[in-house]
């Protein structure tokens, strides 16, 4: 039977070895954690080594068990204590109130600034009118 990256079971009686197909067991051991899920493809010489090495096949099988055990955790739920939900909702409410307060203050600040700008504009317009009237009186008098 072939694995995800094409490793077949070794023939019965194979004794394996520390080095075959130009690859050492240590090199395979270093590569196995990265290729066990089949996302990265193993090099051909490495696959050939595993095909003929019982020790590396055993190690690969152990990595697969690790992955299977990790996958089983996905369906397991740890129930939080009953107080978690109320705590979260209270924190959300407080955050919502802070947000509303910030929004309100931002609105008021805009209103203050608008008022100041309007007053400044009116003042400037008044000054211009007064200056133009004074200029007219001087012109009439002369």
């Amino acid at each position, binding site marked *: 039977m072939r694995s995800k990256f094409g490793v077949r079971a070794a023939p019965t009686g194979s004794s394996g070895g520390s080095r075959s197909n130009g690859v050492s067991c240590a090199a395979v051991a270093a590569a196995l*954690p*990265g290729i*066990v*899920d089949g996302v990265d493809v193993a090099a051909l010489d490495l696959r050939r080594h595993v095909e003929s090495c019982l*020790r590396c096949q*055993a*190690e690969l099988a*152990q*990595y697969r*068990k*690790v*992955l299977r*055990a*990790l*996958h*089983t*955790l*996905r*369906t*397991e*739920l*740890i*129930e*939080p*204590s009953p107080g*978690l*939900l109320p*705590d*979260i*909702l209270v*924190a*959300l*409410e407080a*955050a*919502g109130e802070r*947000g509303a307060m910030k929004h309100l203050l931002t609105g008021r600040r805009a209103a203050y600034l608008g008022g100041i700008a309007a007053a400044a504009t009116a003042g400037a317009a008044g000054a211009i009118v007064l200056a133009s009237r004074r200029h007219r009186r001087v012109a009439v008098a002369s």
Partner: protein
Amino acid sequence: MVEDDDGAGDPVGNLSDPAGVVVPVIPAEEAALVERAKAGDVNAFAELVRLSQAEVYTLAFRLTGNEDDARDVAQDAYLRAFKALKRFRGDARFSTWMYRITANCASSHLSRRSKSSHDELSDDDAMPDERPESNPEGMAEAGALRDRMTAALAELPAPLRSVVVLRDVYDLPHEAIASELGITEAAAKVRLHRARKKLRERLFPMPGEEKARAV
């Protein structure tokens, strides 16, 4: 970033179309709640919290390794989600979006903690061997293996645990993991590699390794 929502990586409730593209299946009830929450309905968001809190808490617990931190992380994650809800496009499961936010919150929480404490294990630290003498036949039982895996995960250094939980338990892509943990994809892959190796050595030591550990 929490705002990025690619909808990838949820092994539950997703289907692959013939081209291999993952298509999230979003229940109509959940989609309606999300829409109402985005429109400002606080009760709808509270219902989303109620429906997803166990999953979010479970992930937070697996990432932090203890109940108090998990509660803080879960609470922080929902606050961030509440503030960022308008940016949630709704084309993925709400829980998938929450996983990414929770991962991001847990990462921030753990890095704050590591700055204030000096006993954090580095990636290269060896795991303590506190396991009882194991019986390989007994480990075949799924429940016992799950318990041993949970214990082994708790003993992993937090940076390794985060990556292996997000990748091998929650099936998040490397890109999303790197983004939420603030690391490069290459670093995420290296951490995953180390974590798997440590778990394998811890749970299924090879004959030579058993002797080496005993010495």
